[in-house]
């Protein structure tokens, strides 16, 4: 197809258009971070809003994937079939509850507050046991790094306990030093390295070196 002297077929075939759109949008959003201008802010807002719409469609794709995967499991009578039935049934029930009242309706909030949140909190509570088993395993490894790691963890833990300040102020002082000197220095070093990595990734995307979008 040739219009105004531009061969659109070639443009599409060589992915020039998608690269140009991606770079253009990236540059505009980046400029919006540093330049205060009402028109530019509007354009950036519209582009980010468009991103939210794309994300909503992507969620539908995800939902289709969940339904397809669990339906196949049920059809195949897999050993995990009961859980697939449970997942699809609970998804349908929540969908039916949420549909009339909307995402922020009282029924939706009830499901979130009284079903989802207790489940999430209970699940997160597992972290305590997982940290304990992970540290126990680390102690069994017997390398000097792990010994240092465990020693620091014990000092910080004991130093954080309120009663330890009465018994021995040494632990509190040691905790302060560990948190504010070696831990902070290490964290800042890692953050600086990560920041450079993030900038480099962004630049590769902006210059079209990396194209994570479909070709």
């Amino acid at each position, binding site marked *: 197809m040739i219009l105004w002297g531009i061969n659109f077929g070639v443009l599409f075939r060589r992915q020039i258009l998608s690269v140009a759109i991606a770079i253009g949008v990236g540059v505009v959003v980046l400029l919006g971070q540093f330049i205060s201008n009402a028109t530019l802010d509007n354009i950036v807002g519209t582009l980010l809003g468009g991103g939210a719409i794309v994300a909503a469609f992507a969620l539908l794709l995800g939902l289709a994937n969940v339904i397809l995967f669990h339906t196949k499991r049920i059809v195949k009578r897999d050993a995990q079939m009961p859980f697939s039935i449970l997942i699809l049934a609970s998804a349908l029930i929540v969908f039916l509850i949420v549909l009339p009242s909307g995402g922020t309706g009282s029924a939706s909030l009830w499901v979130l507050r009284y079903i989802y949140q207790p489940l999430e909190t209970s699940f997160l509570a597992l972290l305590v046991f*997982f940290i304990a088993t992970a540290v126990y395993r680390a102690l069994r490894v017997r390398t000097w790094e792990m010994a240092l790691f465990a020693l620091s963890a014990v000092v910080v833990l004991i130093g954080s306990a309120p009663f330890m300040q009465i018994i021995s102020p040494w632990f509190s002082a040691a905790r302060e030093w560990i948190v504010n000197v070696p831990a902070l220095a290490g964290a800042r070093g890692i*953050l600086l390295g990560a920041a450079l990595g993030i900038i480099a990734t962004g630049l590769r995307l902006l210059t079209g070196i990396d194209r994570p979008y479909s070709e």
Partner: protein
Amino acid sequence: MSVILDLLEQSGYNPMQAFMLALFLPFLIPFFYFLYRVPRSTSRPRLRGIPAYEALKKLLSRAAETGQAVHISVGTASIADGRAADTMAGLYTLEFLADRAANSDIPPLVTVTDPTVFPAALDQLRHAYERQGYPEEYRFEQARFIAPPVNGSAVPYAAGVMDVLNHEPVAANVMVGAFGAEFLLMAEPGAQREAYQIGGASDPAVLPFVSLTMTEPLFGEEIFAAGAYLLNRVGHYTSLIAQDIFRLALVLLILVVVLLRALGLL
């Protein structure tokens, strides 16, 4: 950099914007210089060995011995938020493993939580099978959408991944990307079973979990080197060299400032 920072703050930028620009603008010089130089050089720069990437290169052979799949998680962030670079690092790892998997009988098992990452993961898998000449082997279910984040929490996803790792035949677990506390929830059951796990994150708060649970850990910025180590891409070498030089310059700057302060000259 501190001079640029002061100038930018005086020009009306808030401290965060000023910091971002002060880091971004000088970085453009080594980045574009090496972008010009590296493709014209006859030899590729030598990279220091990172055991986790060496292990990733041998991972599919290891999985082929057991005939079981390799689980891959690209993190819990989106490709459109502040942690998108971490997700990109996960997607590069996925691209490498998907290419290797497409050439073997071992299908990859990719789990995803963020809706925007899901099409990208599917795309990586589809292209890998096309590149290797087996487009018919690609399946929509090779990437599994577990659950979207709820109020920013990826706990439902972590629960789904735990189930996958505990009940499905998985030879190894690879987790590279942006994670929070859910990293430990996903990785600890595997660590308890002494499963082979390779993973990393850039968030310092997650690194203790990485260190405690991964057989081959990747720390901080190491995850951003995936493209150079695994995919051998010129553009990624370029940015690695620019990062190293810029980091060295920053370290020297910090040392000079500390020295000047200590001598009372600043």
